[in-house]
């Protein structure tokens, strides 16, 4: 399991070989968090120290779609046409990023599947062309590997549910190609009324192969159903707190509570529209989500290069230290910041791997079709 671990640590010694077994089982609790910053430093200095140990895992970047129509770019040396080139990813202390493969509205069938394949092909080519800065990753272990090599891990997804072409075989093929997150909206089986029977089967097959469900912009019935049946943790790649800002993609407190109970992950976007115009607004959302869902269930989503307007002072991917400094100023424990930036995403990715290993013992690949289940 070493490859699934974030950091390699020596095994805790519980007794020497020549000693008899202890009468009671020794339970080794989670290791206490060791602070990495000096509490007397300025918040920004502390933020940089924390991020050096626990970099940002960013839940959503729209880079592939932007690069699709952008001739002559170079992310390695700095590219003013985008919000997330390699120098600014490094400056913002980003360690991993999800590249959205989402499709414009109305794509379906051949067009949706074909366009997703093209997006994925482009994303892989871009990563390969910037191998000094970026490295593709498909699991928690590969994310950790990329980080150990000093590269920003790029995870492919979320892709749109339309990319499945209503077929579980296509789901498996996309997983084989490296897609790891799928947004469950905008199809006949995951719409306003929730999941159909085929939708249920899609979620079970996603669990089996190790594809995470993204529920941002999904309908409330869909969210509740997926929280009930999914064996793996779920993601919200761009959702903030509805109580603070009533945007349709933001989560009301009841749902945030449920997400907390299900140990999902609500990744708060840095968009003026969903969170507000200033750094403190984003921090307010992070505070709120942490208070309602728990520190293990809150994450960050840059939403850079998605066309969204960003809060002041958070205009590109180099700005994360400012946001973390604000949180430290508000008295966030370093341990909670470490979970927010890095630990929670690693936990969710590992959760998907474990759920897949378990499900594969139990279930063969599903041969269900939408015609058979939804008639």
């Amino acid at each position, binding site marked *: 399991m070493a490859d699934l671990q974030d950091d390699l640590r020596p095994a805790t010694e519980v007794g020497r070989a020549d000693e008899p077994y202890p009468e009671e089982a020794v339970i080794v609790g989670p290791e206490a968090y060791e602070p990495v910053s000096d509490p007397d430093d300025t918040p920004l200095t502390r933020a940089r120290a924390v991020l050096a140990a626990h970099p940002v895992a960013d839940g959503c970047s729209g880079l592939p779609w932007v690069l699709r129509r952008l001739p002559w770019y170079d992310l390695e040396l700095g590219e003013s046409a985008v919000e997330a080139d390699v120098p600014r990813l490094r400056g913002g202390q980003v360690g991993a990023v999800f590249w959205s493969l989402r499709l414009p509205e109305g794509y379906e069938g051949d067009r949706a599947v074909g366009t997703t394949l093209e997006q994925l092909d482009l994303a892989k080519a871009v990563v390969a062309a910037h191998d000094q800065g970026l490295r593709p990753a498909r699991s928690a272990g590969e994310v950790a590997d990329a980080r150990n090599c000093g590269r920003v891990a790029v995870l492919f997804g979320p892709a749109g549910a339309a990319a499945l072409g209503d*077929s579980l075989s296509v789901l498996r093929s996309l997983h084989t190609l490296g897609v790891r997150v799928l947004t469950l909206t905008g199809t006949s089986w995951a719409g306003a009324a929730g999941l159909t029977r085929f939708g249920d089967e899609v979620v079970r097959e996603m669990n089996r192969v190790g594809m995470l469900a993204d529920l941002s912009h999904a309908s409330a019935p869909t969210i509740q159903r997926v929280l009930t049946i999914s064996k793996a943790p779920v993601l919200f790649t761009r959702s903030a707190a509805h109580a603070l800002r009533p945007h349709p993609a933001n989560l009301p407190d009841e749902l945030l509570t449920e997400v907390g109970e299900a140990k999902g992950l609500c990744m708060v976007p840095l968009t003026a529209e969903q969170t507000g115009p200033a750094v403190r607004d984003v921090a307010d959302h992070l505070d709120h989500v942490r208070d309602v869902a728990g520190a293990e269930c809150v994450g960050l989503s840059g939403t850079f290069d998605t066309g969204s307007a960003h809060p002041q002072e958070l205009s590109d991917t180099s700005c994360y230290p400012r946001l973390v400094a604000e949180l430290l100023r508000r008295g966030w424990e370093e341990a909670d910041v470490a979970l927010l930036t890095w630990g929670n995403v690693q936990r969710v990715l590992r959760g998907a791997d474990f759920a897949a290993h378990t499900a594969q013992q139990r279930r063969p690949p599903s041969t269900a079709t939408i015609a058979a289940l939804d008639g």
Partner: protein
Amino acid sequence: MTTLDDARALLAEFPVVDGHNDLPWALREQVRYDLGARDIAGDQSAHLHTDIPRLRAGGVGAQFWSVYVRADLPDPVPATLEQIDCVRQLLARHPEDLAPALTAADMERARAQGRIASLMGAEGGHSIADSLGTLRGLYDLGVRYLTLTHNFNVAWADSATDEPAVGGLSAFGREVVREMNRLGMLVDLSHVAATTMRDALDATSAPVIFSHSSARAVCDHPRNIPDDVLERLPANGGVAMVTFVPKFVLQAAVDWTAAADENMRAHGFHHLDTTAEAMKVHRAFEETHPRPVATVATVADHLDHMREVAGVDHLGIGGDYDGTAFTPDGLGDVSGYPNLIAELLDRGWSRTDLAKVTWRNAVRVLGAAEDVARDLRATRAPSNATLESLDG
């Protein structure tokens, strides 16, 4: 020892690389990929040409599984991904018999292990929906050849069995060939028009294949390869894999099919119509006009001619099993290859030559395509050309 024993002994050492088998499509049509309902670990002769015991009996050592989908499906790309998934499930279910293979080295390793190397080929340019990104997606999923067209033209290439439109390959079609060269995906020229064959041979820098085509000089059917194209194979290094489909290899069957098609049209049906009423008309015709039967010798005649024209280094075998309703006598399913080898031994083909036909040529071609790709990738970036940008 009989000649058949000799043939089997030869195949034990140099098994058959078959260029085209439509088992995935048959599984899709018959049981919608319910692989348990057609378990190929056991005898499936009631339903299929192909199962593992018969592949073993036939001396098959490598199979290009076709991930063909019909060109008239509304969504060919997702359907192709479903076909690829089907092959992957087959490989996962039968790891002791089927070895996943992506390269010539994988094929040799499978032969050494006594497993059947399993490769994938896509049949028809419609499977990439005019997109080089999608082409690369198929390559990443393991597809190692693309037949440029199926029975109908695509926007950038003419089919052998459709009206000429482009006159061979368009500019985008040539770019598809170049990108396949860069990837190391074999260019398959079965099903394409002779003009497309010539254009592709001009455009390619890697050896091509004909995954299932025979000789037009022996039997005049557009699906077969004209001599002038066969003559170019030595320079190109490619391989023509002879197919068994009676209506392509036997002149009497070609003529019979033409008459049957004419009869269908006379009754107001399209000649490829498979609806119940159309099939009834077709069966009535068949009762009064017995279907001519091809034999092992018919196929051997093609190989004799192709050896004369292209040379023994450029021949292979592509049975098209489970992709054709009728088969020659003695080649009724995938267990039949030893009969063909025995026939060729009887005709005086040497063991060395037959080892090339069964195994060595096809493996060499895949390896050569990999070498070309290695060189091209060093100097050429992935192509982002589109149909619109090149063909307007």
